[in-house]
């Protein structure tokens, strides 16, 4: 489904280049569930953002769903991204001014779904995550776990093929974290969503089918489970 070849990312600091991603090549097949691990600052988030097309590599080749990403224009990349990718964040990143319902609805608006369709899709998603009762609340009125549920619901609303999650349980307690991981596993197994998650927790990493360890911007090890 996606392929990174010799991807590097560096920041210029004075005269020297600080490589955050250093010549990484990675193939991901549809249906995989990958956990990325590694010490803080090793480049996990950067890699995930590059995969998610939010960040651009300094060099290398990037293919996604048959498209040559590194040659696409911004608009095409955005269209590709809208169609295939959902994002989940450690800090949830819900819009404070919008209700739960509206937050989940937002991606649909940008994908030009008709109002009636949107209604049905959001209702369906609320139902599936059992948060119908919370739909008119604002993010500040929810617990962290609930907020992350909304965040995931929002990421999934448009039916992405690839779910990217940057430390989705980082701000949650272990029980809440476990629920989210169960949910991911189910999505992966039953709905066939490809998932790439960044995590610091060995235990959560083991929900995946492959664990990739980063160190100083390189893949240190990769283990199939």
């Amino acid at each position, binding site marked *: 489904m996606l392929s990174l070849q010799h991807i590097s990312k560096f920041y210029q600091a004075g005269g020297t280049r600080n490589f955050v991603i250093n010549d990484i090549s990675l193939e991901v097949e549809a249906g995989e569930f990958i956990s990325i691990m590694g010490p803080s600052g090793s480049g996990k988030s950067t890699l995930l953002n590059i995969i998610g097309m*939010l960040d651009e590599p300094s060099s290398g080749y990037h293919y996604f769903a048959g498209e040559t990403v590194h040659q696409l224009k911004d608009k095409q990349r955005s269209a590709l991204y809208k169609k295939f990718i959902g994002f989940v964040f450690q800090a949830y990143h819900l819009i404070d001014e919008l209700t739960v319902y509206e937050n989940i609805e937002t991606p649909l608006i940008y994908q030009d779904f008709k109002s009636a369709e949107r209604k049905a899709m959001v209702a369906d998603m609320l139902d599936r995550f059992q948060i119908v009762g919370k739909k008119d609340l604002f993010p500040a009125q929810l617990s962290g776990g609930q907020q992350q549920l909304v965040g995931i619901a929002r990421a999934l609303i448009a039916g992405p093929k690839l779910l990217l999650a940057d430390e989705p349980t980082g701000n949650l307690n272990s029980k809440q974290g476990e629920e989210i991981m169960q949910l991911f596993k189910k999505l992966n197994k039953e709905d066939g969503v490809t998932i790439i998650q960044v995590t610091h927790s060995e235990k959560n990493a083991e929900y995946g089918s492959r664990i990739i360890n980063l160190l100083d911007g390189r893949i240190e090890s990769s283990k199939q489970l």
Partner: protein
Amino acid sequence: MIKNYLKTAWRFLLQNKLTSLISLTGLAIGVGCFLLLSTYIMNELRYDRFNDKADRIVRLVQHIKSTNNNEEIINAITPSAPVPVFKQALPEIADGARIFNYSGYKPATVQYSDKLFNERNILMADESFFKIFSFDFLEGNSLTAFNQINSVVISASTAKKYFGNDDPIGKILKVNNVNSMLITGVIKDVPAYSQIKFDLIGNYAMLSRSKTRKWDSANDYSYFLLKPGTKVKSAEQKINAYTDNLFKNDGDKDHRLQFTLEPLTRVHLYSKANDNLVPAGNIRDIYILSSVALILLLLACVNFLNLFSAKSIERAHEVGVRKVMGALRGQLFIQFLTEAAIITLCAIMTGTMLAWLIFPWFSNLIGHQLGFQTWDINVLVLLLIGIFVSVTLLAGTYPSLYLSAFKAIIILRGKSGGNAGNSTLRKSLVVFQFAVSVFFIIGTIVAAGQMDYIQHLDTGVNRSNVIVLDIGGASYNKIQALRTALIQQPDIKNVSASYDSPVNIAGGYTIDKAEGATGNLNMMVTGIPVERNFINTLGIKLIAGNDFTLGDEQRVLDTNYQKRVYSFILNESAVKSLGWKPNDAIGKQISMNGRQGEIRGVASDFNFASLHQKITPIAIFPEYDYFGKLLVKVSGKDMLNTTNGIERDWKSFFPDSPFDMHFLDQEYDELYQNDQRASDILIVFAFITIFLSCLGLFGLVIFSTRQRTREIGIRKVLGASITSILGIISWDFLRLVGLAIIISSPIAYYAMSKWLQGFVYRINMQWWVFVLAGSVAMLIAFITISFQSVKAAIANPVKSLRNE
């Protein structure tokens, strides 16, 4: 999609009540002021255009060159001959009408049965008047209105005043006790934007001079209707060719009659003629006011822009998230523009309401009755839409562009989000706002100073406690009798009379003979016929010779001019122009427009016209043919009793004229009405701009302190005192205000010098004016800043740090 934008925009505005309110208030005030000013401007620009034939109507003005300095005077008052003569002789001229300002010198008394009114707006016009100009008849009609020699047409409100709901047609009004006028028509009140304003307009044929065609005495306004297709210039050439031919045998060509034609629609704003029917506007004022209107609107937009872009710190997160959700930059741009549009819309509605509420007061300030009814509704709607679109774009574009350009990646790096945007831009805008404010503060101080100077300048005439009564044309005997009666009263110090107002003497005379004088012998002087106690009553100082005597009075009473012997008091300037020292002048014979006599005294120079003009030569002389003003000098003690006494005597001598007194000080102040108005308007603008600037500053300080909560918290933990924190925050902004003062001062100095140059007698701008204006701006800015900065400085640091 739009619905969604509207919803989020609306919610965002509600959730940010304070800043939304600040933006809205600022914009509403800007829009309100803009509406008021543009109403005024629009009204000035459409003057007289309501006349169907406006593009063919012209006004005749007369050019006069004075003999001694070749200065050209343009006068709107013309002789009685041109209209009938040119109408007959020149094919280019289709029609013409003379207009005489019947109540121009003094109000006319108009009587209907037992009702008696003083009317100040009576005109007399030739029969063609209503065929040339377009006034709407409610009763009667334009073709037959002046069919009777004694016809009069009155305005709707005059009709109401005299007759209530009765039919005025056919009723007779007695005017000044001599003319009986027959009402033949009622018109809608003359619009505020007409250069010809009247409550009553009678047939010119009632005037005795209507039968004569005189070229040498000017009393009338002359309007012509040109044949379709006739160029104003060519008609003008024809007229002058005609008069040149007519007067070819009269002396010096340069000083013959010379006329020009002014297109009707240019008269109000562009005419340079004196003595207009209604005070003329000035195209320069229109430019100035247009700039002011735009600047105020701009200031308000600046506020909005500033607050909106400062807000971006808080919105960066939202932008990032939306982008991750797939929003394109264009979509976000439109979302933010929608927010700007909503605020603008609310502001326009509030501003329109505001304007509506303020219109009566504003009308007072500028001396015109204006309101939304002044507008053609379609034009008004177009204007409002125009304001809406331009303000939205002006205030909304930059922040929307800026906000929508945030990169999603920024927020993924953590909570802190974007920065506050281009702070240089925002700072320059604050500087701009305060520069405008400081400009108006300086303007206000200078104008107030000049007005104060005018009021307290010793003009050489003691105006205090002088009561003026308009007595236009009362006979010598009656005035003497009234004077004798009045002077009996203990609180009346002196009584005199004069031709026109002693603070605004206008009569033009020429001294053509002077005994052994070496100086100019065709000398233009201002002259005023007075009752002999004039000098004394007004406390004018004599530097040589004596005041007039009873003998001087008696020698000018003869009805036969040839037998009169005049006496004169000249001022210093006049004597100097004649080449004399004050003492040499006494007893010298002079001749002035046929008046022979000797110089009795020399008065020290005093201001007899507005302080815009230099003191020029003047001759004061007893002559009892016509007095316009009765001047009563009172002690100032027990005013009520004194004025009651005057009224009693007045009633017994003039039972048919209403008692209508005022003070000489009022006449003096009226000379500076325009200046006073300019000064008032400056004050208003100073307040508005200061307020707008403070709103903007206040908004920015909120953001700055919010942005720096953490910094302030850390500083406090490290032991910074509240004052030092206040200092840190204030310094940032006060620096900008300082810069504004530096930028604004020279501009204000230049502009106010220009204004002051209009006065011959004026103050000098002192350095302290600028210091004062600067301090005022600083103080106001500091207070504004303090509201927020104190709050930030005393906040508990533990709280703000824990929130991080």
